[in-house]
Each structure stands twice: as structure tokens, then as C-alpha cells.
């Protein structure tokens, strides 16, 4: 119990640190909100253009491209944070020079790295909420049937599954410093095949099976069904199980890789190099 309280205090300390640093750059937050507004507007007008065309691939998501793409983009933010925040917290510590001071504290490296990304997830949640609020209240996105509990469950499992790739990416940054192949490859391939901007069913039949190898496909599928169609837990089970399977396979591999990377960096004396 004492360990858990200590851990939560440390998580809070990292969130507080990042929040204080964030608000010290006063104009940055406002610019980010403005960026979200522009983003939503672009896709609203794009969907108006496409609105008159019949798109059978969107039928299972209610036929509305705006709702489809808004959820795709919003939850792709999480993928992006999960993929990049762990490695960027290491990179930032290396280049800023704070990593060495953190590593000699009585906090373990995994706790330091994971806690460093908590603020990014919280901030992304705020961004996604703003994104959806603009969609609902300004552009009339209909979420009246949404299964919010189901969406939160899908989101939580997705974050853990995506973070496996993030931990793997962090392992590369720990050793290679720059030129991490995981984040750039996985991020690009997820945009292409994961169904962020268009349904997976639009892909050619030879390419479609590859999309099922990506957790984001199941994540966005489940999220859209929960929020747009209000799908029940029973209907969300295929997505939930697929994401759990990804987590069960990827997480141990990632953790092992990360521990190996730390050992390698300590052996080479490059833990704090950049």
C-alpha cells in the first residue's frame, strides 16, 4: 500500500512538473486549441463536400464521414502520444541534461519514463474532449446514442497496447539516441492501414489483411462502434479481445527490450549521451 501511495505521489510530481513547464510557455496552449479548431473545421467542410456522395463503406458507421474522421483523428492522437511520449521523454532528458539527475534518485527507470508520459496522455484527453465538443456543438456531430463506458474501456486497453510500441521505441532511443525505426514505421503504417481517414474496407483485398495486424484498426473500429452506433459491450468484444491479445504479446517483449536497452546503455556508458 505504501509503495502504491509513493508511486501515485511520483506520478503526480511528474504531472505537476510538466504542467508548470507547460504554463510557463503562456501562448502555446492557446495556439494548440486554435489548431484543433482549424483541424475540425477542415474535416467538416471536407465531409460536406463528400456528403452528397453515397459511400457504402461508411454505412456500418452511420454513413457520416465527418463523425467517422473526427473520431479517427481524435483517437489517433492517443496513438501518437503512446508511440512518441516515452521516447521523447528520454530524448528530452538526454538533451536537456536532466536524465542523469533523475536516474540517481530512488525512483526506478521504468517509473521515471512512464510517469514522464502521463501528462501527455492527460493533455491529449483534454485535446480530444475539446475536439469532440467542437464537433458536437459547432458542427452538429451526433453522439446521442454513444456507449461512453464501452468507449472508455476500449480507450484504456488501446493506450496500453499502443504503449507497447512506445516502450519498444523508447528502447531504440535509449541505445541509438536518434533514428528510432519503430515510431516512424508504426506511425506511418497505422495512418495508411489503420482506418484513420477511411474505412479499412476500402483497401484492396491483398492489403486488407495487413491492417488486421495493427492494434489501431481494432481500436478505431471499437471506438466508432461505441460512440457513433452506441454498440453494446457484447458487440465490442471482438475489438476488446483483439486489443488484449496484442497487449499480452507485445507488452512482455517491449518490457524485456527496454530492460535490455538500459543494460546496454549502462554498459556502454551512454545512458545520458545524446
Amino acid at each position, binding site marked *: 500500500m505504501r509503495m502504491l501511495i509513493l508511486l501515485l505521489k511520483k506520478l503526480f510530481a511528474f504531472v505537476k512538473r510538466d504542467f508548470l513547464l507547460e504554463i510557463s*510557455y503562456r501562448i502555446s496552449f492557446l495556439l494548440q486549441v486554435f489548431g484543433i479548431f482549424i483541424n475540425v473545421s477542415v474535416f467538416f467542410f471536407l465531409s460536406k463536400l463528400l456528403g452528397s456522395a453515397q459511400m457504402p463503406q461508411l454505412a456500418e458507421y452511420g454513413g457520416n464521414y465527418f463523425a467517422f474522421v473526427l473520431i479517427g483523428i481524435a483517437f489517433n492522437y492517443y496513438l501518437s502520444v503512446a508511440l512518441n511520449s516515452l521516447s521523447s521523454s528520454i530524448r528530452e532528458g538526454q538533451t536537456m*541534461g*536532466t536524465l*542523469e539527475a533523475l536516474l540517481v534518485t530512488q525512483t526506478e527507470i521504468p517509473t521515471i519514463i512512464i510517469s514522464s508520459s502521463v501528462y501527455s496522455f492527460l493533455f491529449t484527453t483534454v485535446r480530444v474532449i475539446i475536439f469532440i465538443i467542437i464537433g458536437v456543438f459547432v458542427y452538429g456531430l451526433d453522439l446521442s446514442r454513444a456507449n461512453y463506458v464501452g468507449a472508455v474501456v476500449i480507450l484504456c486497453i488501446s493506450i496500453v497496447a499502443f504503449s507497447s510500441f512506445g516502450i519498444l521505441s523508447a528502447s531504440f532511443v535509449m541505445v541509438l539516441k536518434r533514428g528510432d525505426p519503430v515510431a516512424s514505421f508504426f506511425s506511418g503504417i497505422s495512418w495508411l492501414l489503420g482506418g484513420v481517414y477511411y474505412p479499412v474496407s476500402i483497401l484492396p483485398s491483398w492489403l486488407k489483411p495487413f491492417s488486421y495486424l495493427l492494434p489501431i484498426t481494432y481500436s478505431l473500429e471499437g471506438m466508432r462502434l461505441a460512440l457513433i452506433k452506441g454498440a453494446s459491450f457484447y458487440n465490442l468484444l471482438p475489438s476488446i479481445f483483439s486489443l488484449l491479445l496484442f497487449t499480452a504479446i507485445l507488452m512482455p517483449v517491449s518490457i524485456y527490450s527496454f530492460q535490455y536497452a538500459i543494460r546496454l546503455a549502462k554498459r556502454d556508458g551512454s545512458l545520458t549521451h545524446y
Partner: protein
Amino acid sequence: MKAVIETFNLTKHYPKIKGYKDLALHPFRKQYTVALKNVNLRIEEGCFFGLLGPNGAGKTTLIKILSTLVLPTEGKAFVNGYDVVQQHRHVRQSIGLVVNDERSFYWRLTARQNLDFFATLNNLSSPEKEGRIDEVLHITELYKDANRRFSDFSTGMKQRLAIARGLLSDPAIIFLDEPTRSLDPLSARHLRKFIKEEIVCKHNRTALLATHNLYEAEDFCTHIAIINNGAIKACGPIDDIKAQIKSGRSYILRLSPDSRFTELGLLTSADSILPVPEDTRTFYVESANIALVISDIINRGGSVEECTLKTISLDDVFTRVIEDTQER
């Protein structure tokens, strides 16, 4: 006395970074740089220990191994009785590391916010944290500036905050890696005075100071080790090392004004004779038998006005040890 730091044949090899040509021609050949060679060290509780050596001697590598930031290639190291590889958590509970890199703080946070963050990471509970932060801010004379941003601090204040951070968890052992390196002479003198009074005299901590500043080491270290090319060349209490070197026979010899023999360079009875600049009658003489040198001078028609034993400084010790190593 209990040893709080002990190393046994501690060795560290760093892999060399290969160029593109080497990678293409010899992709599997491994090349290493030797940073530490069979280092055996014993530092007792309450000792202020100086680790002296030129740049690249291996001082920082040794401190990084003892701080669990780098793994040794061979040998063993124990800090406060804990193995630095197997029991790194316990080691980190026992140490405070003061690095000279002012980038190791968050520049846009205040001194207090920085210390609060690092105190939480050092498992200090909320009630003791506030008290401890105030205490280290008082010790480092930064209490009044605690709510100023770190970026507004002078280099000396930044270094004192680094010491405050090192003291936060009230560690048994404190490592100071060249704490005055980036300071101007006045700030360095102030910080040295502060370290001596607060860390050495008042709090009597075990401290390991890595430095190439001999004045600094002589000022507050009781024991030293001289390290060069990764190997310990001399180790022990400063006075013992000076005595060893002095077997040492350094003298200042002054000829009488009427001495008919002044060409002391011709003497073969001394190991070395150097004239004192801008003084034709005074010489630095090194010899195991000064009586023989003096009688040699007298036999050649000279006369000696004064001969005094030269006090050996740490500078002399350091230079002699390093030169001996290079000659070998």
C-alpha cells in the same frame, strides 16, 4: 573504521564508436577504450576523499560506476556495503550526486519547485519534504531565493542548488564531480569555503570529490587518490603521500655572495638542480644525500649560505606522480 566505499580490481572498458569505414571493413571487430584498470580503493566513513587526476583520467567514470549510472566491465564495487550492480536500489538510497552540469535542473521552474520534484523522487514523505527542503536551502544559503526561477540564478547559485539537491535525502555518502569547474575564481573560492564549512566541518559527511584542482583537494580532503590513465597511482592520507614522495629530498640551497663556485649544474652528486628564476645564487636541489652535495660545492671552492628543506605541496606530489607514470 568502517569502509563505505570499496572497489576491487574495478575495470571499465568503453566500446569505441566506429567510423563508417571500420563498420564496412570490420563490422564485427570490437575496439575498446580503457577507462579504469584494476582500481582498488577503500574509503572510510567520515572521510573527505579527493580523487585527483588530469582530464580523461577516469574520475568521472569511477563516480558514475559508484552512482550506478555505468556498469563495470570487471571487478566489484561496494557503496555503503551494497554491490553497485546487484543492489543498485540500496546504493542510490545511500548516495547524493552533485554534478557540475547546470542543465540538470528545470530552468523554467523555481529552485523550490525543482527541489520539491527531486525530493518526491527520493521518496521523501510530504511532511518531511517541506522541512528538508527548507533545511538544505538554509545550508546552501539559497532560502531567500527559493522562489526565483532557476534560469535567473548565477552559476555559483546553480552549483549550490546542485549541492542542495545532493543533500536532500540526507545521504550517507556524497559524490562531488568537479563542483567548481565552471565557476570564476571568486565564486569558486566562496563555494569551496561553503563546502568546507558546511559539508566537511559541520556535517562531517563521507564525501568523494573528483577534481583536478589541487588547491581544492588540499584545502578539504584528508585522503586522496591520484588517478591517471584509469589506474590509481597513489592513495592514502595526503601527508603520507607527501612523505613518500619526499623520500624526496627537495631543498632550497642558497650560495654565499662570495662563493667562487656557482656552476651547480656541473655537480653529479645531486639528482636534479634547477636555478630559481631571476636569482643567480639560489637553486632547487633534489638529492638523497644533501650533505654530499654541500661538501662537493665546498670542495669546488664554493660556499653555502643557507640550505632549507623545501615544503612539498600537493602540486609537487601530483606532478611527480603523473610524470613518473608517463616516463614508465
